[in-house]
């Protein structure tokens, strides 16, 4: 194995190095000088993110256990960008929650570790790597979810996440073991080379699907989502709802398109129904929510319900639109979470009523929030519109008009509750609105990146074209 080959794993290696550096920095900073960690880590991570865009070879490692392709690299880069935003946005929370950035190093280390897990998961060429990556992505996050030791909700979120995740990975593993029994191999390539058609294999598929769907919070595997998002610290929620969800969808796409290619009729049906029920349930729950984190949780469930529209039918265009949608979704969702987090850090207020009259005192935050919500709702000219439109197009071209119809109706319902927040911020009168918040530069930068993404990803046809071109390999 040469260096060149090892460098196929550049993303992961860089992250590992970063993680190590983070630990080192943490070790060698004085207790009252911890704030230096944040800029250094953010800077480091920025470098890592940028390095991810450098040209890179694609290929396989470890006898096929590890694989990369242009599409996978793109997925990793999207995750990197998302995590970069999360890291920036976390600064406020770290300061506010742990006083003097006590746990900053640990926090960053864990997040990066989780990201490493995700990247390995996406790059997995066999189920072992996939499984390890999956667990590495989840377990640290559970710890982080429970990290606000003073809050009962935080611990509750942690325990709910870790236990449900454990159950789901148990199911997933059981599915893998069945697949292993029928096939004798754990490598994606050799499994997909076989024509999967036995009932046992279908059963295995469903077990594995359950395990992954849990991560995406597809209904009916979504119930943990709202509670965990609400209880966990906001930045963890935003990480879970954006990065973690996106990575799980990426791997789902890869699994479905490669390993379970031959079960296409089966997973088409499964996705068809789960998509409908996911959107609908997510929306119906979101309507009533008053706590914004919980609200965004259900909104993210509903958003996840749109993704199957791109996957269904198994076309390249669909995959491209899924990736595109997720890229936009990451920006939009992080934008919304970023505002919630900025306000929550400054005032501790997380309820919709608290946002009444926000525009009066915090016009910029309100505008960012509005843009993010519009993007989530799919309103032009912000990017969300394009993301959704292409998803719908992908499904419609396949002839799934009913599904598209239901999805579009759901998008309208979702508009309703997004508008509720817009209404609170812009229209509702409030005697004592949240006072003007002076944001630190990190929050500003984080939100700024989100806004840039929201405004321009949609218009930039080149981005979609690029995604479309790299997703050629998969179908």
């Amino acid at each position, binding site marked *: 194995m040469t260096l060149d080959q090892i460098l196929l794993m550049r993303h992961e290696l860089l992250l590992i190095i970063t993680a190590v550096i983070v630990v080192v920095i943490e070790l060698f900073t004085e207790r009252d000088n911890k704030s230096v960690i944040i800029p250094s880590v953010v800077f480091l991570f920025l470098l890592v993110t940028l390095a991810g865009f450098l040209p890179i070879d694609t290929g396989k490692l470890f006898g096929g256990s590890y694989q990369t392709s242009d599409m996978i690299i793109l997925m990793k880069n999207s995750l990197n960008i998302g995590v970069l935003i999360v890291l920036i946005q976390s600064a406020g929370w770290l300061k506010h929650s742990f006083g003097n950035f006590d746990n900053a190093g640990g926090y960053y280390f864990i997040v990066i570790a989780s990201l490493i897990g995700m990247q390995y998961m996406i790059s997995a060429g066999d189920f072992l790597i996939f499984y390890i990556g999956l667990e590495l992505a989840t377990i640290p996050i559970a710890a982080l979810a429970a990290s606000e030791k003073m809050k009962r909700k935080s611990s509750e979120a942690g*325990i*709910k996440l870790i*236990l*449900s995740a454990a*159950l*789901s990975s148990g*199911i997933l593993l059981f599915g893998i073991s069945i697949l292993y029994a029928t096939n004798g191999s754990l490598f994606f390539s050799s499994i997909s080379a076989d024509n999967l058609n036995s*009932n046992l294999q*279908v*059963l295995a598929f*469903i*077990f594995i*699907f*359950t395990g992954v769907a*849990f991560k995406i919070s597809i*209904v*009916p*595997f979504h*119930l*943990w989502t*709202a*509670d965990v998002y609400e209880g966990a610290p906001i930045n963890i929620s935003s990480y879970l709802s954006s990065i973690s969800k996106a990575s799980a969808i990426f791997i789902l796409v890869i699994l479905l398109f490669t390993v379970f290619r031959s079960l296409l*009729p*089966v997973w088409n*049906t*499964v996705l068809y*129904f*789960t998509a409908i029920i996911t959107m609908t*349930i997510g929306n*119906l*729950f979101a*309507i*009533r929510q008053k706590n914004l984190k919980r609200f965004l949780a259900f909104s993210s469930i509903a958003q996840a319900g749109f993704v199957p529209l791109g996957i269904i039918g198994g076309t390249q265009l669909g995959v491209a639109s899924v990736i595109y949608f997720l890229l936009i979704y990451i920006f939009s969702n992080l934008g919304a979470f970023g505002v919630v987090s900025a306000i929550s850090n400054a005032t501790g207020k997380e309820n919709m009523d608290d946002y009444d009259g926000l525009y009066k005192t915090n016009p910029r935050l309100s505008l960012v929030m509005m843009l993010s919500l519009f993007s989530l709702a799919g309103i032009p000219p912000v990017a969300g519109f394009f993301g959704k439109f292409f998803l719908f197009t992908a499904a419609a071209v396949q002839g799934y008009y009913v599904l598209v119809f239901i999805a579009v109706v759901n998008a309208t*319902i979702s508009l*309703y509750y997004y508008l509720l927040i817009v209404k609170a911020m812009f229209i509702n009168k409030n005697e004592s609105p949240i006072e003007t918040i002076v944001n630190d530069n990190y929050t500003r930068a984080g939100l700024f990146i989100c806004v840039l993404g929201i405004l321009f990803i949609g218009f930039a046809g080149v981005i979609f074209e690029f995604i479309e071109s790299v997703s050629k390999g998969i179908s």
Partner: protein
Amino acid sequence: MENFSYTLVIPLILFFTFVFTGLFGGKFKPVISGIICTVSVFISAALSYFAAYQYFFIYGKADGAYRLINVFSFHWLRFNDNLSIDLGILLDPISVMMLIVITTVSLMVHIYSLGYMKGDIGFSRYYAFLSLFTFSMLGLVLSVNIFMTYMFWELVGLSSYLLIGHYYEKPAAVSASKKAFIVTRFADLGFLIGILLLSAFAGTFDFNKLTDPNGGAILQSASATFLGLSAITWALILIFMGCAGKSAMFPLHIWLPDAMEGPTPVSALIHAATMVVAGVYLVARLFPLYVFTSPQALEVVAYVGAFTSLFAAIIACTQTDIKRVLAFSTISQIGYMMVALGVSGYGAEEGLGFMASMFHLFTHAMFKALLFLCAGSIIHAIHTNEISEMGNLRKYMPVTHITFLIACLAIAGVPPLSGFFSKDEILVAAVEKNFVIFLVQYIVAGITAFYMFRLYFMVFWSRDTKYEHDPHESPKVMLFSLVFLAVAAALAGFIPFSEFVTSNGVPFASHIHLSVALPTVALALAGILTAYFLYKKESGSPDKITNSLGIIYRSAYRKFYIDEVYLFVTKKIIFNLISIPVAWFDRNVVDNAMNGIAFTTNYISEKIKVMQSGQLQQYAFVMIAGMILIFLLTLYLIIV
């Protein structure tokens, strides 16, 4: 060759006067707007007379018949190769005759109003609207295209609306103007549908093509039928509905008496002389179509006209408002014109009725305008409309008295005044065609004489009423108009009308038919005498008679409750039974259906919240159950 293009100026000058005084009338002294308008009407009238002279005596005739002259026309709105709304000017005997009528009466009214409306705050507005009206009326009669007629038809309706509502602070005037507009609008709906039907079958809006007896329009028609009548009949009946609305034929007459809320000169111009005869004019304009394609429609015209003339005459005997008496008299007289058209045939002598109708239109315009202007003069003097509050006015207002008497004699049909000649022709035409109708018209002639002289005697003779301050004769400008019109009303009968205006343009000579004329004159004199004995001196006898008539009198006094019927239909049925339910339905059913979607969504959302119980184990259970469900689903798919 002849050049009539100057006729374009006749209507247009008034349009510009309207725009000018309308926009800038407030900028200078009111009387200046009055003078500007009067001068332009004068120009218009002069040109009309000149045009009439040129048409009737120099250029109009070709091969012994008056022909249609299309002065010019252009496509205002083109639909396809055949259908277009054209604007232009069409000269033929009736339109030229109408030019004379309109501009003459209008000029008189303009002059008269200089005195009558003096000091009114809306003086220049009034004159602007008068110009608008005259413009529209001229446009109407000069139309080359039935749709152009419709356009100006609407415009005269508008100007009528505006002028009736001149005293817009008076609720009665406001509601009268509203009523006039809506009733005629309703009738115009018939007109519009008639036009649509006509155009669908005849394929053109152009009068030249529509009324050409050998043209395609007439030959093509009468193919499709609906409810037993041919489509063209329906079309013509519907168009007649529009005419009936404008000309206040029963049952669409109800707006005209109320329209008397407007200034009296307006009543003279619009609601006596010109606009209300537009219906007659339109039937005359489409006359070949009526005659050749649909005798049934023509019968409808005749019967409606006959009934209306009788009906209105009876009501006129009971009214106590001077202007309302005149209004019902107008309705009755227009009924005459309609009857004349209805009984007419096509041709020279056969078209006697047509000629008579136009003749009567002409004479009626003169004497009825005169009557109204006299009434205006009286109202100007004593500030009331109630004839019971008048009496003995001949002492105070001699000129008004004489001119009024001339007009009364004219309308009563006493020779040698104009009304005698035209009415005689109508009765002759009727007796040849339909005896029942003739009989009705004959009786109406008597009633007409009676109620006119009832009015005359009650106003100018009767008791010696005490007035708050002595009535005085009207100013000179008003008297000028009265005298001018009185002369016209007296002499118009001597015009050899049949030499100019006939249904097919071929002149013929008409004569007095003594067999009809003598009984009619006798009856008219009888009517006058009855009125003389009853009303010359104040006496109790009229009250006795009315009491003995009881319910008949009361219902005639209440105009046979037609207004109440309308009120019932509009207020109770349209308002309460349609509109309010529609509004309710919209707010409560349709809207709630839409809100219901939102509500249901919220309701379901509330109901399913137990799914999210917060219990970890329940979550896990749902997850496992969901997985099993998906498995069952796929199993099902595999098996199927």
